[in-house]
Structures are given as structure tokens and as C-alpha cells.
């Protein structure tokens, strides 16, 4: 019973399924927040899967998503004209991401793998801090 995959499954069911539900029924502003939240939650799932399957080369996926996720959110913000401030995304970014990256670093041990994990963690947190800070005046 691989604990990492179990954590990934929990993140999937508890995190991404509600995001899909809010995306389906919410109104524009909450849908943009839901889209932002989806990328924040997806990165840890990729990292957990990489560790769960025992394949460090899967972390490239999380690296690319860490970069393109916030970019995707900004694309929507540009066209909706507003970037809503959302504490949910900020809170998730600062809690879930470190909660997954740090144990993985401990397991990976010092070296190139840990450096990569830390870079991915920093990218996710920084990117989503920017997108969740929001712009108050109408874009």
C-alpha cells in the first residue's frame, strides 16, 4: 500500500473533484479561482505520483506545470479583465505545496533531486502568490 499514491488519490478526490464542481456551476470570478486552484493542486499530485511510482524523471511534468499553470490563469485574467484576489489559492499554495515538497525532499535526500524538488516548490508558490494576489481596479 504505497502511501504516496494514497496521498495523491486523496488530493485528487478531495481537491480536484470539488474544483471541477465549482468550475461547472460557479460564476465567472469563482471559476477563475477554481482554475487557478486546479494547477496549484495538480503539481503536488504529480510530485507524489513521481515518488509513488519510483520514477524521479516524472518530476519534469511538475516543473512544466509549475511554469505554465500561472501563465494559463493570467491568460484568463487578461480576457476577463479582472484578477480576483483569493485567499483560498494563497492558503493552499502556502500549505499543501510545502506539505508535499518537504517530505519528498527528506526522502530524496540531499543532491540533484532535492534541488529540483525545491525549485519546483518555489516556482509553484511564487507563481500562485502572484496570481492569487489579484488586481483590485478593473483591468
Amino acid at each position, binding site marked *: 500500500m504505497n502511501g504516496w499514491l494514497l496521498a495523491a488519490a486523496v488530493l485528487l478526490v478531495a481537491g480536484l473533484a470539488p474544483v471541477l464542481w465549482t468550475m461547472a456551476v460557479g460564476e465567472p470570478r469563482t471559476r477563475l479561482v477554481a482554475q487557478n486552484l486546479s494547477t496549484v493542486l495538480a503539481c503536488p499530485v504529480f510530485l507524489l505520483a513521481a515518488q509513488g*511510482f*519510483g*520514477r*524521479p*524523471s*516524472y518530476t519534469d511534468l511538475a516543473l512544466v506545470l509549475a511554469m505554465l499553470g500561472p501563465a494559463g490563469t493570467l491568460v484568463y485574467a487578461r480576457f476577463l479583465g479582472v484578477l480576483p484576489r483569493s485567499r483560498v489559492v494563497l492558503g493552499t499554495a502556502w500549505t499543501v505545496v510545502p506539505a508535499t515538497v518537504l517530505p519528498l525532499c527528506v526522502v530524496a535526500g540531499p543532491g540533484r533531486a532535492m534541488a529540483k524538488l525545491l525549485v519546483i516548490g518555489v516556482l509553484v508558490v511564487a507563481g500562485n502568490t502572484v496570481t492569487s494576489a489579484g488586481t483590485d481596479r478593473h483591468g
Partner: protein
Amino acid sequence: MSVLPYLAAGWIFLIGVYGLVTSRNLIHAVGCLTVTQSSTYVLLVAIGYRRGGTAPVFSDLPPGARVVDPVVQALALTDIVVGATVTALLLALVVQLRKRHGTVDPDKLAELRG
């Protein structure tokens, strides 16, 4: 579980075609076409899966390991990128069609009849 991914691919294909048939906006129709397209990738990749196998990338794997089928992955990988550019071509047609017809509702396009 032995047939769930295949049936899911079939469901995605039919729901995509349903969207195409009942669409009232051509951009929505092109979006439904991408949904139909993704059903082919789900089927392709599901066919290549081998229980207990891992990805056939041997940079961090001993050569004798039990791996899944790389051929379907190669087919799906190129198709996803190419499908995006074909979608772009169809969206370009929609942009110009809006300019010339003034609408993107297929019901209001009345140029070619009979």
C-alpha cells in the same frame, strides 16, 4: 475495471459528437471537436497499458524492467500537438467567417443551400 477506460473513451467520443450536433456557436463546436479528439488519445494510451509496468524511459530505470508499450505513446504524443494546430486552423476559419457572415451561429448561416 478491465474495460472501463475503453468505455470512457467511447463515452467521450459520443458526448463530443452530441456537442457538435447541438451547438449554437461555432467556437463551442470547435471545442467539442477537441473533446472528441481527446477520446482517441484516451483509447490509444489505455490500450498500451501493462499492469505493473512503468514508463519505457530508461534514463532512471534498469534496461530489463517491465515497461508499458512505447508505440502508442509515440502515436498519441505527436497527435496531441498536431491536433492543437488543426484546431487553430478551424478557429481561424471561424474568425474570418464571423467577419463575413456577422454571426457564428450555424443556424443563421444561409449561404449554401439546396
